[in-house]
């Protein structure tokens, strides 16, 4: 050890040397004065070596880090770190972790409260309309005119019902 230790963050000569024991494992880190201050090591109470050592690439549990939400890009590791999910889709993507957690923190795992009835109806309407419209196109292009007429009528009925529901609100 003839050479002076270098800072683990910026490679300047290190003057701050830290050792922490977490789960019976020794972690050592060397820092220069500037980086030490930036990382808040001058205040040893509010600081964990683990935060410093963990780099996004070097994950100890790759299968956890690998899982990410296709919708918003939030990773399971992010969720474990912050306790917050990225988007609604994350509940499905990370269900293997979230579902058991829900049972632990709540009084059951299924919703029994208010349902956004009108919004759900609206969504059902819109989904149904989409299905009918693409069905209508198919029917026309494959010259099934009877089907096409039936679907056209159904679309008209559905739109009427949607307008009526909106007017009622």
């Amino acid at each position, binding site marked *: 050890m003839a050479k002076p230790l270098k800072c683990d963050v910026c490679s300047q000569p290190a003057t701050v040397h830290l050792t922490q024991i977490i789960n019976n494992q020794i972690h050592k880190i060397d820092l220069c004065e500037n980086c030490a201050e930036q990382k808040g090591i001058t205040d040893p109470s509010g600081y964990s070596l683990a935060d410093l050592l963990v780099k996004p690439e070097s994950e100890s549990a790759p299968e956890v880090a690998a899982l990410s939400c296709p919708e*918003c890009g939030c990773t399971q590791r992010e969720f474990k770190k912050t*306790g917050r*999910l990225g988007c*609604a889709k994350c509940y499905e993507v990370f269900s293997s972790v979230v579902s058991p957690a829900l049972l632990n923190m709540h*009084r059951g795992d299924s919703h029994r*409260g*208010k349902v956004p009835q009108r919004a759900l109806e609206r969504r059902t309407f819109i989904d149904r309309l989409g299905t009918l419209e693409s069905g209508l196109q198919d029917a026309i292009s494959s010259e099934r005119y009877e089907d096409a007429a039936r679907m056209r009528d159904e679309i008209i009925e559905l739109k009427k019902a949607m307008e009526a529901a909106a007017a009622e609100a």
Partner: protein
Amino acid sequence: MLIKSIFGGKSEMTEAGSKKCPVVLMTRIRLARNLADVPFPGWAKEARRKEVLETCLPSVASLGQMKRGISAEIESLSDLERQILVERHLISRELSTHAEAAGVVISKDQSISVMINEEDHLRIQVIKSGYRFKSVWNAADAIDTALEEQLDFAFSQKIGYLTACPTNVGTGMRASTMMHLPALVISSQMEKVVRAVNQLGIAVRGLFGEGSDASGSIFQISNQTTLGESEEEIVKRLSSVLRTIIDQEMNAREKILEKDPNKLYDKIGRAYGILQNSHLLTSSECMNLASLVRFGVDLEMFPEKTRNIVDRMFIECQPGHVQYHAGDEIDSSARDAFRAQYMRKQFENVDRPIFQLHETSTEDDTPKQEPEQEAE
């Protein structure tokens, strides 16, 4: 501009304290909601957050309930304005510090506030003085239903409303009351109560939520779980716990009066003396003194109208409010002096407390069996 309208109107919180239930200062319900198909605020990119703000702010502001209310982007508010909103429980500390693309809409009577881009896209909050879960729920439910007409919320048939933090999923509802529990604090029973209540899935916090202290003997008591029960069931379970806490507090009051009335009279008498004569007052001392005077009002030692002064003090002795009244941003020692002066003025015309044993009046202070029987 914003501040003026906040102080100009009458506020539900400070004007309507009643003797019906001396223990419960106010009732609050908040609902967490998110837009479908947009990442939650904490994860969304700045541009998406802006989109959410631009969609939600006009939607919320257009509601009938928000007529002639206040609608603002947090970034456009000064630090002092934000602090005042926090002290009035109209926005959270989190929203005041994470102001980028965040907004709030507040109803004219300040009983409803909707925060935009807090931890969730929407946080609907209704807060009223006294013990009034029924009317508070009805108001929150109505706002939520009205917003549902304009916005698609993230919702799953299985686990309900989807929220950034899984602890809020399901109903997205946090129901709470602010409880004034001076006798439980004086007789050192609060720790025991907190422990027992926690085991029932009910949380106890200070006046300003997580991490705040319990100065003024005021505690915020709320449900911890949001999934697996309906809103009604949650409120019912919470209410039965609150009922027990009220009984405990009333028993503790009776015991103190029975065992050592002089000790209590001494505390209340001194509080009155300090409020009328002090020249330096910290906010936490002021809270504790106000708490004792409120206890005195419950015991009919002070006239009933003193209750409003005290309830206003709980809010107006906070640093932001003191600076507003001082007309300037001032440091903490100047605030202490100004606060003392302000309180001397408030208490100038409050009559001396009447010290006599209240053999029968402790009975009167027990709230009626159904404190929710409200005339509306």
